[in-house]
């Protein structure tokens, strides 16, 4: 009896190590391969000799990229969109979530429905596109020629994030708020001195959701930004990929590294900032998933 038990346990343990090991390696491998290919020589990359480790080291792909002004421009644009977009979206979401968390708010049910409905039904990409074009014209006529501002203000707002914040604020005991009001705190002070410090972890999670979606945003940036100087990094990568897989473009390729290496180098540059902060933000993401189920 005892032996049989131990055997099945052992088999299970080996199986799980094996399975998880393979899956983890599969998740890691593309990144290692990308890094190796970006610093391998032209012959090695083009003739498929690079499988895992780099062959015939060169750093020219990175060097060329780092001297390309358009690349730095795209990076700066992404930073702009991430920083301003996150600040704007978070501000709007905190204010809205706070107001919605108050039971005394009139038409509270109506406002909630107003939010949730956008999660159920979306107008679709073509009506959204027509709407964005119109608002872009309005922005331009107001003298805001930089289309990045339209993206910052109009996009990336998610009803789910506001609801997460609302729920966190609802969890703060109302006695603390009453005590603060007795002490003469205004509504804004109650929010900044009581509610925000008490829901720090939810706010951190929502901030990350906003920031990651801004950093990774592609589709609408490509659709709405007219001036190619204002393209963010993701659009820049995609356009480069389209260039470098175009045979006519490749025929004129004269660099001493492979065009593939150039793409891999770009991917590495797009991924590195996330990899650097990833260990610090990972736990907040895990938290965010578990906040998904919501009691009402």
């Amino acid at each position: 009896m005892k032996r049989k038990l131990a055997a099945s346990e052992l088999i299970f343990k080996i199986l799980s190590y094996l399975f998880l090991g393979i899956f983890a390696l599969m998740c890691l491998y593309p990144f290692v391969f990308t890094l190796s290919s970006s610093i391998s020589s032209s012959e090695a990359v083009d003739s498929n000799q690079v499988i895992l480790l780099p062959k015939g080291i060169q750093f020219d792909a990175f060097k060329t990229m780092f001297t390309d002004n358009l690349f730095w421009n795209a990076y700066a644009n992404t930073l702009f969109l991430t920083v301003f977009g996150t600040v704007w979206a978070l501000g709007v979401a905190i204010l809205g979530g706070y107001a919605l968390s108050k039971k005394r708010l009139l038409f509270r049910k109506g406002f909630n429905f107003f939010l949730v409905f956008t999660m159920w039904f979306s107008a679709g990409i073509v009506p959204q596109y027509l709407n964005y074009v119109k608002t872009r014209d309005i922005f331009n006529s107001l003298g805001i020629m930089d289309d990045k501002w339209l993206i910052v203000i109009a996009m990336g707002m998610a009803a789910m994030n506001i609801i997460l914040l609302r729920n966190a604020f609802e969890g703060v005991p109302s006695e603390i708020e009453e005590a603060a009001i007795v002490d003469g705190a205004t509504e804004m002070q109650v929010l900044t001195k009581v509610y925000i410090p008490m829901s720090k972890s939810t706010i951190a999670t929502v901030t990350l959701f906003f920031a990651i979606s801004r950093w990774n945003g592609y589709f609408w940036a490509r659709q709405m930004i007219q001036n190619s100087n204002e393209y963010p990094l993701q659009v820049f990568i995609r356009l480069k990929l389209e260039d470098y897989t175009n045979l006519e473009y490749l025929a004129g390729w004269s660099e001493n590294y492979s065009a593939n290496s150039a793409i891999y180098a770009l991917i590495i540059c797009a991924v590195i900032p996330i990899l650097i902060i990833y260990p610090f933000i990972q736990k907040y993401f895990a938290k965010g998933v578990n906040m998904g189920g919501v009691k009402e």
Partner: protein
Amino acid sequence: MAEKVSELIFDEQTKTYSMDPEQVVRDDVEKHHWLNTAKTILKDWRLYLMLVPMLFVFICWRYLPMYELLGSFKLSQTGVEVNDQLYLGFSSFKTLLFGGTELSMEFWRAFRNTFLLSFYGLCFGFPMPIILALFFNEIKSNIMRSTFQVLTYLPKFMSTVVMTTLVTMLVKESNIVSGMGVISQALQAMGIISPEVAEAGLLKNPDLFRTIYQVSGIWEGAGYDSIVYFAAVIAISPTSYEAAQIDGAGKMAQMRYVVLPSILSTVVIMLITRIGSLLSVGYEKVLLLYNSNTWVTADVVSTFSYRYGGMGGGGSSQPGLASAAEMINNLIGMVLVIGANAIARKASDVSLY
């Protein structure tokens, strides 16, 4: 008249009639209801002011686009305000749904692809995170488990562009300049795909699009999605396992009688959510992976309207028709979401929204 009398109360001592004091209060409340409402709003004006930015963003960029949906009942005319376009009624919908034309076939193909991409995701992508979570639970060494978890969550943080660029490069065709992608090579070496298919590039092959979509989806999301199941698995008290062991339960029996019942509610909720979003496919990923060779299996409703709405530049521009196509999809999707939410609410008193 009788009504009036009944409201009056006759006082025996003073021999006078007087109004029922409660009724007086009620009348007063009624009279001042709107005044009071206005007063409460005025008193809490800061709260309502806080709502303004949110309302502004949602009205301007979530609800105003719905106004553009009017275009699906009208004749698309460029440069004409949607309200002033010629009214056509349901003709766009009829053309799409029962037209019997090439266009209608294309719409139905897109609708079918949308459903199939989600459905296969449900079949193959849904169980994977659960399996991962069960295996995570088997690994008792904290360091090993954290390492596995960190590595498997990692792809989730890559953008769609980076992910699709990687996929494109890993399964690329071989051309005059460079050889085929490394995954194509491996698959060919293992004899899973024929050399001709590998040479031509897997993304150019309509038969393989769905597989690539699902595998890359699992690669990207399975680790991250396992978090929620893992939280349910580690919540199981160790005494439950011990009790099962004393009763002579082997590993499989423990899985069957201890672990599965404990995570069942989470699984059911996630399953219902998944079913609710069967008709919302991430169009960005499809748009970045598909090409005209794979439209047969890859074209979803969103990308269909992307092309017909004149967004990608080139092609025909029929925003009305394109809006109609997505509206059909999104309306059915909405019914699914609301239905799923209602079932989830019944099943577990946890509402998803």
